[in-house]
Structures are given as C-alpha cells and as structure tokens.
C-alpha cells in the first residue's frame, strides 16, 4: 500500500514536472530562477535564445553575468538589502531595465520578479521580455515623427517667409516704380510741372503707409498680447463701433444694427484691442456684402459669466474650405490674412474664444465669447 502511494506520488510529481517543463520550454519570455545568493537555478529555452547562452553555461553561476553596469554592480546589494529589510525593489512590479547578451550586446528588457519560499529556501523567478525590437520600432517611429514635425515647421517657416516677402515686396515694388517714374521725368525734363509728379508722389506716400501697416500687423501678430485691462461699459462701447461704420455701410446700401440686452452692462478687457477685434469683424462683414441691399448685425448676449458679441452679415458666406482664423488665410483681394489671426490672438489673450458660424441660406456670423472679468496680463 505504501509502495502504491509512493508510486502514485512519484507519478504526480513527474506529471507536474513534465507540465512545468512544457510550459518553461514553450514560453516566449525568458524565465530565470535564482537562489538567495543570486546563483541561477533555472534557465529556460527562451532565456537561451534571448541571452545566447546555453543553460549549462549559466546554471550555478551568478545572475550578474546577464547584467550590464550599473545593475551588475548593484545586484548583490539589492539582494542583501531585501533580505535585511524585506523591502522589495523589483519584486511584484514590471520594470524596464537593461540586460546583456553573451556577445556583450546590452538590450532593453521588461522584467518582473516573483518570490517563492519553501521552508528556509527562497527562489526568485524573473520573467524577462526582450523589448529591443519594440524599442527600435518606437525609436524609429519617434524619429520619423520628429522629422515630420521638423519638416512641417520648416514648411510653415517657408510659407510664412514667402508670404512676408510677397506682402512686403509688392508695395515696395510699387513704391520703387513710382519713384523711378518721378526720377525719370525729372531727369528728362527738370522743368516739368510738379502736377505731373503729384500722382506718383501720392502713390509713394500711400505705399509707405501700406508697408507701415503691414509691418505693424506682423509685429502685432508676432508679439505677445499684453492687455491693459479696465472696465468697459458695453452699450456705449458697441454704439461707438456701430456709429463709426454706419456711414460706410449706408453708402453701400447696407443696414447696420445693434442689439445690446439690458443684462450686458459691462465687461473687463483691453478696450483698444477689443475695439480692434470688433472693428475688424464689422469691416469684414461690410466688405463681404460689398454692395447692398444687405444687413450687418452686431448683437450682445450674456450667458453666466461670459458675454458673447456676434457680428453677422447676410453676404455670400465663406466656403467651408477656408480656415478663417488661419494665418494668411483670406478671401479678400489684396487682404493680408492677418486681421482675423490677430483678432483671435487678442480674444484668446482675454481668456475668450472666437468662432465662425456659416449661416443658411448664406452669410457669416463670428462669435466672440469673452469672460466678464479678465485678469490683467
């Protein structure tokens, strides 16, 4: 009977051994067991494949041989510290560290360590995944992304440079041609009446103004928006805006209306900059209609702690493909494409938002959302 039990127990043990061996042999990850001193007691096939050592070269030797510095130098200390304090550093979590193959190559691994105790014996089992391929792919992907971003930045810089050169070059070319006209006329006939030169001189002055405006616009766009915040009584602020544009609109047969509900009393912000934003929006709205009959509406609306000012027009509208707030995007002949970009910067600096709504059947509404209280910047 006792013999039967022993035989049965042996079979169970053999079965368990076979089962574990099959698992160890087929595992894709390296499984390495060490004893209390760090000597290797188990080294599965995946470990052989990953590290390049045969099990017989590793078993009984210290696991430090599989580690590069500084892990190699510190491992004994880790074990000693753990045995003394019971505070684990590696056990129970997955860490990404480095290992060393037989050929000396250092490679990244994901390491998780478990601990098993039988009596006073302790076994540490390390499950090791070689992540060098994944890391190589991640690095390649990161590099490709970095290059793509660099290319995009360079393309942006190229586009901005092209635009600046074009926008500044055109008035400069006009100015130069008018100056050459005056010079040639005066050279050809020093007695030439001044009235023959007046038109060219006038155009030179106008081109200089245009250049000056462009330079200011570029500067405005480039510099950080610093706000001089104060309380702005909203109804008179918007009324002045409408009063400014009313004659221009009327001359084009465009009705310009203002609607400010009684709860929209005031907001805080930089009055000059907000005026510039709304001035730009009304100007765009009037120019979108060009010639009436048409209608431009300026409306204020309060929602909680925000004021929305909407400028809408019933002009032809803006195509879906046009990104209105994108730098240099414009649908206007001769437009710099800076106005709405600058407006957006100003509104964002106030902690607000600006958005476009395409109206049906046609027309455009620009919504400017501003907090009623803005911190000074």
């Amino acid at each position, binding site marked *: 009977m006792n013999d039967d039990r022993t035989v049965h127990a042996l079979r169970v043990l053999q079965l368990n051994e076979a089962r574990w061996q099959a698992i160890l042999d087929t595992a894709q990850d390296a499984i390495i067991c060490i004893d209390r001193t760090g000597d290797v007691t188990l080294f599965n096939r995946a470990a052989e494949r990953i590290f390049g050592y045969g099990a017989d070269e590793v078993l009984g030797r210290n696991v430090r041989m599989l580690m590069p510095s500084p892990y190699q130098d510190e491992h004994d200390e880790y074990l000693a510290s753990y045995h003394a304090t019971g505070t684990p550093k590696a056990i129970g979590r997955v860490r990404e560290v480095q290992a060393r193959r037989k050929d000396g190559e250092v490679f990244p691994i994901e390491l998780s360590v478990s601990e098993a105790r039988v009596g006073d014996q302790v076994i540490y089992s390390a499950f090791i995944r070689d992540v060098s391929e994944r890391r190589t792919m991640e690095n390649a992907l990161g590099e490709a992304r970095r290059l793509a971003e660099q290319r995009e930045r360079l393309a942006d810089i190229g586009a901005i440079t*092209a635009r600046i*050169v*074009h926008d*500044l*070059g*055109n*008035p*400069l*070319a*006009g*100015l*130069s*041609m*008018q100056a*050459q*006209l005056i010079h*040639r*006329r005066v050279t*050809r006939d020093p007695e030439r009446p001044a009235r023959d030169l007046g*038109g*060219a001189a006038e*155009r030179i002055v*106008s*081109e200089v103004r245009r250049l000056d405006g462009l330079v200011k616009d570029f500067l405005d766009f480039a510099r950080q928006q610093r706000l001089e915040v104060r309380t702005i009584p909203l109804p008179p602020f918007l009324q002045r805006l409408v009063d400014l544009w009313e004659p221009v609109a009327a001359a084009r047969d465009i009705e310009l209306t203002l609607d400010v509900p009684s709860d929209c009393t005031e907001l805080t912000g930089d009055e000059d900059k907000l005026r510039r934003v709304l001035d730009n929006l009304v100007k765009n709205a009037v120019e979108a209609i060009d010639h009436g009959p048409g209608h431009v509406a300026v409306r204020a609306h309060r929602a909680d702690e925000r004021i929305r000012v909407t400028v809408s027009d019933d002009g032809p509208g803006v195509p879906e493909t046009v990104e209105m707030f994108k730098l240099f995007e414009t649908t206007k*002949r*001769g437009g710099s494409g800076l106005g709405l970009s600058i407006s957006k910067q100003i509104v964002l600096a106030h902690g607000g938002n600006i958005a476009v709504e395409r109206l049906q059947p046609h027309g455009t509404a620009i919504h400017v959302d501003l907090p009623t209280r803005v911190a000074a910047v």
Partner: protein
Amino acid sequence: MSRPCSTLTVVVVVDDASFRSGVAANLEDDGHVVHQYEDPRDVPASSLDAAHVVISDYQMAEIDGITFADRVRTRRADLNVVLTTAYWTPEMEAEVAARPFLRLCRKPVDYDELHGLAHELADAC
C-alpha cells in the same frame, strides 16, 4: 505681328494698383501704348491680339501668372510674357524656364531692365 520700330503695345496685367500704374506710366512716358488690367479675367482678346508683349505678375489673387500666361499663349502662340514676382524659388524658376515664352523679373523691378526685357520679347514675337 508687324509694328513700328520701337513703339510697343504692352498689356500690363497686375493686381497691385501702384506697381501697375507705375509700370504703365513709365512705359507711356517712353512712347509705348499700354492697356492695363487689374484682373487677368478682364483682359479682352482684342487687347492680346494687338499686343507686342504682356507684363504680368507671378502671384495674383484670381489667377496665377503661369495660368494666365498659358491662356495668353492659347490665344496668341507668338506672344511673350514677362512675369514679375517679389518671391521666387528654384521651383518657380524651373516652371518659368520650361516655358520659353516666359521671363521672370524680380521685384522691386528696375524699369530699364523691364523695358529692355519687353523689347527683347517683343522682338522675338
């Protein structure tokens, strides 16, 4: 087409008013006949038919200069075009070089250079 020795009929198509009027006035001062247009789409066929040379801009709001020049050539296969530009790249130069009837003139333009180029291209037509 036949023409008197040094008097040219020039079609100037530039969307920048100051540059366009400056070029036109200088050419007129030199005795040339100038027809000027802001928008390439407004240029009548009759103007092209009468022209010895066209001066235009590489980058215009409605139609770019290359497209316009191709249209000019569709109308008049012997008419040459000067394209002025404030910004140029090797790609642009290659695009122009691929069309023997085109010349690129960089802004700000020296009038005497432009005038000489207009004569050269008119003589070639």
